[in-house]
């Protein structure tokens, strides 16, 4: 960061930018992996986790191939199970687990070598890289620091108000920016500064940081389920409901039904996170900066007026966000659509352009280990899909539940919500999950004589609940890059909130959705 500060004209560096300054992000580059000292129980888990993963792999790989599954599908399930165990327990770093998975997919003939290798060139990886370049620009120009300080000065009197502000901000942003990774990347530098102010860093994570980052993961993810346009997967689900179920879902139908559920879930998460899951100690409820809020106000004033660099960064970011928000107009304006990736591409190009831009290549803080982690997770997920293993797993699960004609609507409704909700743990793509699950749900509804919308729309509301593991969605990977929480932390909070979300949607099915005419009266 010192070298970054010495680059293009940026906001005035204050005399207080010392190495131990919480507002100075130079000591926390995302591309560097922070080492954490594990607790004794974590050490045991790590010691036993590696052989456990291998044993599970061998058991699944050598068992007789189940009916309806290909040999390749079985091999992929075995490899993915090993990786899932290793990702959760972390006997080796998560990116090494991803690399192991990619190698195993090839060596076990689960997925083609070319298919595995090309995942690193997928748009999702590009979007991550470009988002980190844009985030580096915000850090370098001090714009992230200014925005974080403004937020803290306004809301930071108590950690609770600040956490709630971030939740609310994300739910509002979801209405305008459908790209979840973009939203996560936008918030990342601000969150990093805020976390530092509250004493949380990758080297010394604390419960404030865990709450802040994991609540942001949740806000970005299930915040998207408040709107039909919140994610591409939602739109696919609506298309299925129309094409297979013959019922149209309008934007307002979706929003009126699910926005209240999302807001309620948000409040519950905001309440139980710091109170029950990652209890906040009194010292983590206030900024750790000497002098407290007054000092931070002083620091904000000390930053002076918005600098040229910050203005430029704002303009570049506004261009990118503008393109993200107006994606539906592009065809009319330009004759082609500028995708979320290409919008970020444009922004990154301008940011890196000599003289015109703000950033040198060496100043772009790209966590490559995270790209490898993502690539492995996507390779596993795609291999599950390509070999038909994911479809087989879902189909077998529905088959085992023995849902037969004559069964009442509500047991089926509860099963569908529970299965759709918790299935996200084993998927790395919402789109894939939608393509597999929603047609199943519509077929079940039609077979049993229920209105397809009554089951499929609430099932679609679960699509964006991908909050349990870092591999489950792009924003999760981005937030995980901060090193502020472990996979186990994510699993713990994620499973609790997934249960809460399930209960809320079941409750809504009996009440709110019934009032709206979605579920039968």
């Amino acid at each position, binding site marked *: 960061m010192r070298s970054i500060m010495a680059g293009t004209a940026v906001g005035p560096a204050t005399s207080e930018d010392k190495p131990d300054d919480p507002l100075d992000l130079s000591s926390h580059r995302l591309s560097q992996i922070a*080492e954490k000292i594990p607790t004794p129980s974590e050490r045991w888990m790590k010691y036993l986790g590696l052989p456990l993963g291998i044993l599970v792999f061998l058991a699944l790989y050598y068992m007789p191939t189940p*009916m309806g599954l290909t*040999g390749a599908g079985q091999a992929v399930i075995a490899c993915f199970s090993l990786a899932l165990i290793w990702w959760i327990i972390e006997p080796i770093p998560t990116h090494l687990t991803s690399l192991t998975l990619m190698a195993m997919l090839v060596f*076990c003939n689960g997925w083609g070598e070319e298919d595995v290798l090309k995942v690193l060139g997928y748009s999702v990886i590009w979007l991550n890289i470009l988002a980190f370049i844009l985030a580096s620009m915000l850090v370098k120009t001090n714009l992230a620091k200014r925005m974080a300080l403004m937020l803290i000065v306004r809301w930071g009197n108590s950690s609770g108000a600040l956490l709630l502000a971030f939740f609310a901000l994300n739910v509002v942003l979801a209405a305008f920016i459908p790209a979840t990774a973009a939203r996560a990347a936008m918030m990342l530098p601000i969150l990093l500064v805020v976390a530092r102010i509250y004493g949380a860093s990758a080297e010394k994570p604390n419960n404030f940081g865990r709450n802040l980052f994991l609540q942001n993961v949740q806000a970005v993810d299930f915040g998207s389920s408040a709107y039909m346009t919140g994610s591409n997967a939602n739109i696919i689900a609506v298309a299925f409901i129309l094409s297979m179920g013959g019922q149209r879902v309008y934007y307002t139908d979706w929003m009126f039904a699910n926005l209240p559920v999302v807001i309620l879930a948000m409040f519950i998460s905001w309440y139980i996170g710091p109170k029950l899951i990652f209890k906040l100690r009194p010292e983590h409820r206030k900024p750790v900066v000497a002098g407290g809020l007054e000092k931070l106000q002083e620091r904000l004033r000390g930053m002076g007026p918005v600098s040229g660099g910050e203005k430029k960064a704002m303009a570049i970011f506004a261009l990118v966000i503008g393109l993200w928000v107006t994606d539906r107009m592009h065809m009319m304006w330009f004759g082609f659509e500028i995708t979320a990736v290409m919008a970020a591409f444009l922004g990154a190009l301008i940011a890196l352009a000599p003289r015109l831009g703000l950033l040198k290549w060496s100043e772009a803080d790209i966590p490559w280990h995270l790209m490898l982690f993502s690539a492995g997770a996507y390779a596993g997920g795609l291999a599950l899909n390509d070999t*038909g293993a994911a479809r087989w797993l879902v189909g077998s699960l529905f088959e085992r539940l023995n849902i037969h004609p004559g069964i009442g609507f509500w047991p089926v409704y509860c099963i569908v919500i529970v299965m759709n909700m918790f299935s996200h743990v084993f998927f790395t793509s919402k789109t894939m999950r939608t393509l597999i699950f929603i047609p199943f749900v519509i077929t079940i509804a039609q077979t049993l004589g229920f209105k397809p919308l009554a089951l499929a729309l609430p099932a679609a509301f679960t699509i964006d609940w991908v909050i349990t593991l870092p591999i489950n969605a792009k924003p999760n990977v981005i937030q995980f890059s901060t090193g502020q929480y472990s996979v186990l932390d994510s699993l713990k909070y994620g499973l609790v909130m997934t249960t809460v979300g399930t209960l809320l949607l079941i409750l809504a099915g009996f009440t709110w959705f019934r009032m709206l005419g979605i579920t039968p009266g």
Partner: protein
Amino acid sequence: MTMTLHRAMFALFLLLALSAPAAALASGVDTLAFLGQRVSISATGDAVVAETIVLAENGPGEALLPFGFEHADSFTVKGRDVALATDAAGAPAALQMAARRQLLAIVLGPVASAGDTIVVRCRVPRFVDWAGARGEFAAYSLARIFINDSDVNLGTCSLMLVVPQGYQVRRITATEPTFKPETSPVPPYSVGAKSGRGFALVKASHVRPGGRLRLAIQAERTDRGRVPLVAGILLAALYLWFFRDLPGSRRTAGNTDQLAKESK
């Protein structure tokens, strides 16, 4: 001489041109409710083909059906009031050429009616050259294209490849029709096992004359090699031994920097 040749060619052309509609007219059916080809491959490379048809219409006479196996022999037919076609001498002639198409000829009697199932079986020697089909990871590539080169419309059509005992379907590498989950959520193909033998199947509806089905798979032996088993057990054992101090120490398994520092 030239004139004679021209006349002969003209006569041949006329014969060919007239034979095509004649072949269609000879058919007792022009629509089938179902046609399914099941190709059971043996470990020797020979195959037993079973072509199952379900009649949609009652039409006594000769039916010319799509088939596509040139060197098939040992034909048998099973069904109500049906027989294999015969040649002028009365010998069985299940395979007949019509307008350069090799078709399967069966004769339907007046009793045969809509809904009847007819199964024609035959043997196809050397259907698979196992040595040539063997690829990486000891997987065998098998493929079959079914073309409806008859004049019959097929309501539903399926093509099944059954692998030998002791083998299983590794993966489906290509199909026609292809799977488009955005438009049709159910894949046109499936895999399974029947009587201890694995199979892959592709299905399509409304296959008109000229339409086709394709199924390409990889097959492998069900007995997976021992290399992953030995490597996995060895790796787990070595890890447990070399990292036996991990539960007591404050380092992580993946942290080589920390390990280096501690060793100093």
